[in-house]
């Protein structure tokens, strides 16, 4: 079934964007161009911060897809970050170029997510949340028991040593940036597709969506698999950018905490929210660097305050006030006067 595009001549007019699409497109092209050549222009420390920023954007975008659009609060996405890292490590140990393993690791995570959804989607709400954590804990314990991967102490990523340090830095930057771009653009297109409409209908009223023939379970399953693949890709680029891979660091629940807080503060249920949240997160983290883990205390408290008093996040509040969208996924209805 294809979706009929609403016709203009009858009734209210329907528009995607509130600003000119050409304006947004032009801006995007300039930004994408700049970020692609950034490692050759900006200082090396900056490109390494940017790289961590991209990894966080990927994770937060995936978490936002799960929670903000499909209503699944996962606190176990680090399972796929870890599995993505270890899939990369596995192929690299077998002699494959680490950069070429990124898509492979992504696919492996998507495949592994399929049986997991059959277990997890039996649970709802908070039970689903803690069960995702059990899954990630189980993955951590299994990987940590495999001697081939160095057990709990971890292993150095092979296959990067023949490159010069600056080459490694440039390649990992480009790989991370490219994955982040694919994830954000892919999410944007996914949400503009029929699935995006289905998700919006479930979010607004699940019972009504069901009665209109929406298969809620399969929509959720698909989103979970996509998010697992995305987090797997994040794990794969993480593995390439931080050459020593250890179960306790790649399966750390701190990843979940960061992606959750970033999405909440930026704005759940918007594409821009996780990106803006990541900018805020990195600004805070960099400026509070010398104060230990206080940035997490502040960031966590900020997330609680926002969840209670500004549940649409900072971008959501901004958008409601000024009616602007950079990456619109919905439609605007306007009565002709």
């Amino acid at each position, binding site marked *: 079934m294809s979706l009929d595009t609403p016709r203009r001549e009858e009734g209210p007019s329907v528009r995607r964007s509130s600003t000119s699409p050409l304006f947004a497109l032009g801006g995007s092209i300039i930004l994408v161009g700049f970020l692609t050549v950034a490692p050759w222009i900006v200082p090396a420390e900056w490109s390494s911060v940017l790289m961590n920023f991209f990894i966080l954007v990927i994770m937060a975008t995936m978490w936002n897809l799960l929670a903000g659009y499909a209503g699944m609060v996962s606190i176990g996405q680090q399972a796929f970050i870890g599995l993505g890292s270890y899939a990369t490590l596995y192929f690299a140990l077998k002699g494959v170029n680490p950069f070429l393993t990124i898509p492979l690791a992504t696919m492996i995570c998507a495949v592994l997510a399929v049986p997991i959804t059959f277990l997890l989607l039996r649970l709802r709400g*908070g039970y689903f949340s803690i*069960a995702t954590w059990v899954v990630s804990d189980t993955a951590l314990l299994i990987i940590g028991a495999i001697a081939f991967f160095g057990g709990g102490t971890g292993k150095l990523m092979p296959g990067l040593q023949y490159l010069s340090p600056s080459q490694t830095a440039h390649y990992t930057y480009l790989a991370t940036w490219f994955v982040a771009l694919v994830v954000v653009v892919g999410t944007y297109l996914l949400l503009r597709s029929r699935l995006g409409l289905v998700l919006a209908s479930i979010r607004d009223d699940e019972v009504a969506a069901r009665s209109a023939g929406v298969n809620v379970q399969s929509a959720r399953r698909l989103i979970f698999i996509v998010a697992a693949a995305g987090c797997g890709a994040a794990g794969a680029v993480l593995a390439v950018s931080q050459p020593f891979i250890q179960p306790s660091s790649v399966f750390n629940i701190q990843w979940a905490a960061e992606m959750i807080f970033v999405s909440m503060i930026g704005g759940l249920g918007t594409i821009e929210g996780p990106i803006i949240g990541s900018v805020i997160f990195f600004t805070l983290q960099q400026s509070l660097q010398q104060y230990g883990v*206080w940035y997490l205390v502040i960031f966590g408290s900020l997330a609680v305050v926002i969840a209670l008093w500004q549940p649409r996040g900072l971008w959501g509040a901004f958008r409601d006030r000024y009616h602007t969208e950079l990456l619109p996924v919905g439609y605007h209805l306007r009565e002709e006067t």
Partner: protein
Amino acid sequence: MIWINVVIQGVLVGGFYALFACGLSLMFGVMKVINLAHGDMAVVAGYVAVFLTPHLHIAEIWSLLVVVPLFALVGYVLQRTLIQKSIDRDPFTTLLVTFGLSVVIENLLLEFYTANAQTVNVGALGYESWHPGSIFFISYVSLGVLVAAVAVLAVLQLFLSHTGTGRLVRAVADDREAAQLSGANYRHIFGIAAAIAFATVALAGIAYGMQTQFAPTSGGVNLLFAFEAVVIGGIGSLWGTLVGGIALGMAQVFGAHFNPEYQRLAGNVLFLLVLAVRPRGLFGKATSVS
């Protein structure tokens, strides 16, 4: 012989998990709130017992008498403020808010008390045990915790079925609006339920500290065990939680028998198996999962 030991140690650990889980179960049963900071609250209780009660010049083992009422109060206040506010929004928000609290608590503990492991000092009692046979032993502390767990579950059961407040709690859990129409202040009842849950969590936290070492990050893994006990036993069943805790404890002891690294893994595998084969748990009602 190993089987007898697995059963004995499993029952002892299971008692502790049930004590840990009953607060989680109660808050979900009454408020439909999953408190993701549940494990961290227990750790905070442990830290209060270790660092603050010495100022009162009482032995750490009697810190229970101070910490448990204190946590009941904290539970009531937290319920009436942050948690109630998030319930008023939606169930989704309660998860985000309690998760945020969990991370904030963990990192505050790290900042103030470092990552060093602590224990609640119970003197020589901590090393003593009863040897009914040549190869197995029963630690007095673990036995005490098991007795405490059964006592707490029994008191909770009696409270919910035979007292006026207990009946109000059940009425509010069944139908909040109807109870409100009949004159019950559901927010206050929620507060009472949270106070009870937090009191049990304080007890569990101190019991944990008496048996083993804890650190700021110990909360998470304990939340996992409590949750696994609840799901294995069946969501919504108090005594099911005890059976679930015992089943989980036995699985862990059995796993640890082969390799200490398999302790947690064996528990997780049992949980995932129950989820796959019988998602409502051993004693749960069919509708309680979704």
